[in-house]
């Protein structure tokens, strides 16, 4: 059963610490998305990659967030330094291009205290 795998599932950290979230897309998918979900803003697109190349990261605060795909089986989202307002659920999703639907991982629930 192919699925998108995200680690960790939960993360509690102190303000100022670095946070790294990892995502393993479905094998064969060439598009990866990072979304952030909050009560106030809903689902916001942070970044997306096609064939490991970043296509759009305009939704991401550049001063503290960074997203990379070191290889086709791993995508990372890093926050440094973290702030309480970064508390949210971060979802990774993968898909094919031309786009079909996006397949979502279980998410990483981040709490910054």
């Amino acid at each position: 059963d192919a699925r998108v795998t995200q680690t960790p599932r939960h993360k509690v950290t102190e303000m100022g610490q670095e946070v790294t979230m990892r995502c393993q897309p479905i094998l064969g998918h060439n598009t990866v998305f990072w979304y952030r979900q909050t009560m106030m803003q809903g689902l916001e697109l942070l970044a997306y990659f096609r064939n490991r190349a970043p296509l759009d990261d305009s939704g991401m605060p550049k001063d503290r967030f960074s997203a990379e795909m070191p290889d086709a089986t791993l995508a990372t989202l890093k926050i440094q330094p973290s702030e309480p307002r970064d508390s949210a659920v971060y979802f990774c999703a993968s898909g094919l291009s031309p786009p079909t639907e996006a397949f979502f991982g279980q998410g990483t629930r981040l709490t910054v205290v």
Partner: protein
Amino acid sequence: AQSVSQHNHHVILSEAASLELGCNYSYGGTVNLFWYVQYPGQHLQLLLKYFSGDPLVKGIKGFEAEFIKSKFSFNLRKPSVQWSDTAEYFCAVSRSGNTPLVFGKGTRLSVIA
């Protein structure tokens, strides 16, 4: 910028009632349309999708949606809801081609006995 509007923030229905959730989008070109469901504490799962062809789309769990191009709408329907349909429902749109999904803010559905 492309946007997706879901008119109802929270809908409360009794079991066996009929459901219709509204979704409108702002983009005028060719679009791909999706409805996702998020059960409490879980990730987003695809309910149904429309790319082309018959504008009445049938999905899983008895859901269907109708694409009305002239109204820029893609409303979700179910003739008879069950308690297990309690969840949050998200409409999403992508422009045909290589663009990511843009999500509405979601509609929370509560089904009561």
